[in-house]
C-alpha cells in the first residue's frame, strides 16, 4: 500500500482527467484501501468460501459436518434437477417482477409524480408514512402485516368484510408481493422525486404547448431525464428484492412452498435441513441470475438511448 504522502510534492505523477481534487492514482488507492480491506475480509473472503462450500456436501451437523466431501458440481446438478428449486425460482421471478419492478417502481413513481402537484403539507404527510414503512424494522413490519392479514382477527377482513379469508394461506405470493411493495416503495419514491425535480419545467411546458399528452410528455421529456435514475432504481431494488428474506417471517415460505422464494428456500435448506453445501450452490446460482438481470437492464437502457 503506498503511503498517502507519496503523492505530494511537485514531481507527482500525471493527474487524470476528472481528477479535480488532484488525488492521483496512488492516493486514490489509499482512499479506497480501507473500504476494500474491510470488504475483502468480511465480504469477499466469506463469499468465496461460500462458493467453495457449494462444491462440497458440507452440512451443519451429522457426519458430513465432520468430513465434508468434495462433490464437484453435484450440488448444482441436484439443484437443476429439483422441481422445488424451479418452483422457487419461478416464484422469485414473479415476486421480484410483481413487488419490485411493478409494485415499488410504479407505485413509487406514481406517488412521486402525484406529490409534485399537491400541497406541501399533504406531500410531507404522505412521504412520511411511505417512509415509515421502510424504516420500521422488518421484525415489526412483518408482525404488523401478520396482524393485518390474520384470518380471524385481521384488520383487512374487517375492513373489506371478507369474512374469514386466510390471505396468507389462500394468496401467499400475492400477500408477500403486497407486503414487499409496502415496505420498499419509499426508496423508489425518493429516487424518482429527486429525478423529477431534475426535469426542466420549460421542457415540459414546451411539450404541453405542442399538445403532448401525459404519456407523450413522459416518454419524450421526463423519461430521457430520469433514465439514469430508472436504471439505478430498478437495479438496486431488483437486487434487494431478490435477496430479501423478510417474507419468511410472514409466511415461512408456505403454505406448501407457495411463497418459497429463493432466499427462503436457501434458508430452509441451510438452517432447517442443515444442507449448507447445497444452500451455497444455490446462492451462487442466485447471484448468476442477478448478474444476468443486471446486465439485461444495462443493455436495455443503453440501447434505448442510442
Amino acid at each position: 500500500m503506498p503511503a498517502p504522502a507519496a503523492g505530494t510534492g511537485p514531481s507527482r505523477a500525471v493527474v487524470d482527467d476528472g481528477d479535480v481534487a488532484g488525488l492521483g492514482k496512488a492516493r486514490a488507492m489509499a482512499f479506497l484501501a480501507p473500504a476494500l480491506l474491510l470488504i475483502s475480509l468480511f465480504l469477499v473472503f466469506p463469499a468465496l468460501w461460500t462458493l467453495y462450500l457449494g462444491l462440497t456436501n458440507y452440512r451443519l451437523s451429522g457426519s458430513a459436518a465432520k468430513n465434508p466431501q468434495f462433490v464437484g458440481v453435484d450440488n448444482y446438478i441436484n439443484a437443476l434437477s429439483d422441481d422445488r428449486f424451479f418452483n422457487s425460482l419461478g416464484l422469485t421471478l414473479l415476486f421480484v417482477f410483481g413487488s419490485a419492478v411493478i409494485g415499488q417502481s410504479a407505485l413509487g413513481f406514481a406517488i412521486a409524480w402525484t406529490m409534485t402537484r399537491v400541497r406541501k403539507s399533504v406531500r410531507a404527510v404522505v412521504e412520511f408514512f411511505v417512509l415509515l414503512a421502510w424504516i420500521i424494522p422488518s421484525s415489526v413490519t412483518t408482525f404488523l402485516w401478520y396482524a393485518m392479514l390474520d384470518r380471524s382477527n385481521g384488520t383487512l377482513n374487517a375492513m373489506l368484510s371478507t369474512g374469514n379469508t386466510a390471505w396468507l394461506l389462500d394468496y401467499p405470493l400475492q400477500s408477500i408481493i403486497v407486503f414487499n411493495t409496502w415496505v420498499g416503495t419509499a426508496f423508489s419514491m425518493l429516487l424518482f422525486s429527486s429525478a423529477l425535480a431534475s426535469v426542466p419545467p420549460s421542457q415540459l411546458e414546451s411539450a404541453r404547448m405542442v399538445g403532448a399528452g401525459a404519456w407523450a410528455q413522459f416518454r419524450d421529456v421526463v423519461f430521457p431525464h430520469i433514465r439514469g435514475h430508472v436504471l439505478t432504481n430498478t437495479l438496486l431494488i431488483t437486487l434487494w428484492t431478490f435477496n430479501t428474506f423478510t417474507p419468511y417471517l410472514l409466511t415461512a415460505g408456505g403454505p406448501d412452498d407457495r411463497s418459497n422464494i429463493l432466499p427462503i428456500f436457501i434458508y430452509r435448506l441451510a438452517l432447517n435441513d442443515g444442507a449448507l453445501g447445497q444452500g451455497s450452490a444455490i446462492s451462487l446460482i442466485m447471484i448468476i441470475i442477478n448478474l444476468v438481470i443486471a446486465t439485461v437492464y444495462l443493455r436495455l437502457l443503453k440501447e434505448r438511448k442510442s
Partner: protein
Amino acid sequence: MTRKRFFAAAAGLLAGTVALSACGSSSAPSQATDQNADAKEVTLTITANAVSGGKNAAGADWITNYVIPKFVEAQKAKGVTAKVNFQPNGVDDQAYKTKVSLDLSTGQGADITSIDGIWLGEFADAGYISPLEDIVGKDKVQAWDGWKQIKPAVQQLTTYEGKQYGVPDGTDGRVIYFNKKLFSQAGLPADWQPKSWDDILDAARKLKKLPDVTPLQINAGKAMGEAATMQGFLPLLQGTGQPINKDGKWQGNSQGVQDVLGFYSTVYGSEKLGDPLLQQDAKGRDKSFQEFSQNKLGILIESDYLWRSVINPSKGVSPMADRDSSVGWAKIPAQAAGKGPNGADFVSMSGGSGEVINPKTKYPQQAWELLQFMSSADAIKARIGSTPQISARDDVNGEILKADPLLNYISTEVLPVTAYRPGLADYTQVSAALQDATGQVAAGKSPQDAGSAYQKALEGIVGGNDKTFK
C-alpha cells in the same frame, strides 16, 4: 486482541487455502479426562434456549437464581472458586441449533449445553459431542446415583449407538385431549376413551354437527414442523404396529404408512372433519390451541405442554379458566385394539431434552459435577417449582405430579406405552419428508401419491432402498 495479531490472522486467512476440515469441525480426540481436575479456580458456562423475561423464562431463572449460586457455594465449601456463566437464548429451535452447532464445531461453546434429544445423533456424528465416558471417565459416569432414578426408556433420550452422551432433563407424553363441553353437546361421554381410529372418527362426525366447531385437529404439513410428526404421523404410525425405524432401517411406503395417510385423507379430505387450511398456516399450531381454548375445537392430539403452558388458567398463553372441568384426555388408541407394537392397545410418543458436556471443556470433571448437580432431585424440584412438569427422574415425578391429574396420568399410564424417536442423524430429514407427505394429503393429494413421493424422498435421504423396509 492486538492489532498485530488481528492483521496477522487476517493475512493468514486471506492468503487462502484454509482447509475446510481444519476449521469446519473438531474431530480431534478429547483431552485427558482429568484435565484441570484439581484446579482451584474454575470457569464454566451453561447455555440453553431460555431467557429471563422471555422464552422458557422459568428455566433461565432457575439457572441464574438456583443452579449457579448453589453450585458456586458447594464448590466454595470444597475450596474451589467457581465462576459459572449462563448464555441465554430466546429464539426458535433451528436458530439455536445452528448457533450451538457452530460453537461446538469450533471448540468454542458452553461447557454444558442443553439440546433437544433428536439432535443427539447428528451432533455425535459430526463430532460435536462425545460419550460422557470419553469426557469424564467411565467410572465417574457410572458412579452417579442419579441413573437409577431415570427409566431406561427415558435414558434413551441422550443415548446414541449405545453410549450415553448426556443426562436427560425431562420428558413428555402425548394424549388425546377433548373438550367435554362440546362432547356433551354432541352427546358424547365425558369419560371418552377411543379404542380405535374409527372411534375417533365417529366422535368427530358427531362433533361436526355442532355449528362453528372444528371436530378434530391432527397436525399435518411443513408449517407445523416437528409437531406434525410428533403429534400426528408418528403416534398414528405407532398404532399400526411398526415403528418408524427398526433395526437401523426406515419404514418406507408400507401398508402402515398408507393407513396413516388414509386417516389424514379421511379427516381433511372427503369428510372435512379437520380444517385443512390451518395445517398450512405458519402459526397454525398456535391457532389450533387458541381454538381449543375458545371451545371451537373438539379433539386434539398434543403433549402435556398444552395442559401446562397453553391452556393453564393462570400462566397459559391461551388460558382456559375452566380447564380442569372442561378438558378431558384419553390415551391414543392403536389403529384397532391390539394393533399396536407387541399387541398394545394404546400408543404414545415422547420427546425431551438433555444436557451434554462440551468435549472441549477445560474442566471436564467440574462440568460433570455441575451437570450432576443440575440433574439432582433437589435441583429439578427447584426448576419445576410451582408448575408441575414431567421430569426425567422417577423420585421427583412421584413427589410432584400427584397434584396434577393429567401429568400423573401421563407419567403412570402413558410413559409405559410410549416410544421415543430414533436419535439418528437422518431423523430430522425423514421427519421433514413425513411432514411433507401429511401436508400433501391434507391439501388434497391422494395417500398413494403422497406415499410414493415419501418413499422417493426417503431413499434420497438414507441412500438407497436397502436402508428402508415396508
